[in-house]
């Protein structure tokens, strides 16, 4: 019973104090997603999104970012495109979503069209391939580092660690398709995380 006061505090905190919604211009939205996209040379776009959106800009907190990522994976579409729409909509409705999308995609599309031109013209771009291969090693590292940093914050008990291990094994080692993995694990995680009614 003495625990009760302690348990109410975080729940009230979660539901009543929303993260401050800053006023952000469309240009800043587009510029931020452009920055995220260009930083992800070699891959690691999710890790860069967290770095910029959670750590640098503080537009979202850690839990909101992680849950949004999983929702963005369930939805059709590339999950980073979805994340841009999600954040853009939250910050500025339809114009915000369009600005974020535009920022995320414009320079990468220009870049990849240039690569496509070179590839189909000369059939081979070995020097660039080598550089991309090297960069991808660092991009994987950035993703691993993200696992360690976010894991420290949310893997704080037996149940979350089990959920973490189960989703890693099913998705990464057994290679179940994502919809099936989530159909099994998402209900379990919701039951665990459902806010319990406190005795009056």
């Amino acid at each position: 019973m003495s625990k009760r006061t302690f348990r109410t505090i975080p729940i009230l905190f979660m539901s009543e104090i929303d993260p401050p919604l800053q006023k952000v211009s469309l240009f800043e939205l587009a510029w931020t997603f452009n920055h995220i996209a260009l930083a992800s040379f070699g891959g690691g776009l999710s890790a860069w999104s967290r770095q910029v959106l959670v750590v640098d800009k503080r537009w979202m907190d850690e839990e909101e970012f992680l849950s949004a990522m999983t929702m963005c994976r369930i939805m059709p579409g590339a999950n980073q495109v979805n994340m841009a729409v999600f954040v853009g909509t939250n910050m500025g409705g339809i114009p915000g979503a369009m600005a974020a999308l535009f920022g995320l995609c414009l320079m990468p599309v220009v870049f990849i069209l240039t690569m496509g031109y070179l590839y189909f013209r000369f059939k081979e771009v070995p020097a660039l391939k080598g550089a991309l291969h090297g960069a991808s090693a660092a991009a994987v590292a950035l993703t691993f580092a993200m696992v360690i940093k976010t894991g420290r914050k949310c893997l704080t008990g037996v149940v979350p660690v089990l959920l973490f291990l189960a989703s890693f094994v099913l998705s990464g080692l057994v290679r179940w398709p994502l919809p099936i993995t989530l159909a099994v694990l998402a209900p379990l995680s919701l039951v665990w995380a459902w806010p319990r009614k406190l005795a009056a």
Partner: protein
Amino acid sequence: MRAYVHLLAMFGTLSLLSIGGGNAVLPQMHLEAVSGEHWLTNAQFADIFSISQAAPGPSILIVTLVGYAAGLTVGGVFAGMVGGIAATAAMIIPAAALVYVLTRFWQRAQKSRLRHAVEKGFAPLTVGLILATSLVMSRAADHDWRAYVLTGLCTLIFVFTKINPLIMVGAAALIGYLGVV
């Protein structure tokens, strides 16, 4: 013209089917672009896949290159560019519209128990999925032991220092350019 219409219809459909991300519809994309339409050869498809994986931006951009190849069969480089942009837009817009609707719903669920449970409960799941992604990424990039050593070193640096990750990515790109990994 027919190629463009087919591009728009094909990627507009794949957009809504790409549950779990763009790679989920890759086999279908391969079937239509290589076996069906002969926009690309098998080897070209594999090459543009590896180009698009390491290029900056969303991993879905292989679509841009399929569109470019389709445009090339119609006209020259300009037709290719138009094809690339059309394919990209067709792949992005339908799914983005759906996410917009979901986000609006989610905003209204601000104080619900469901939202609280999702935000707390999905966090550990997501961390597991990200770990799985990084494993699959390093396999797809065809890493050998030297690349794994580089990955390990970079991971330690990212976790224990505050260095801008971009510096490490640039350094790793240089190492790759020099042919060390």
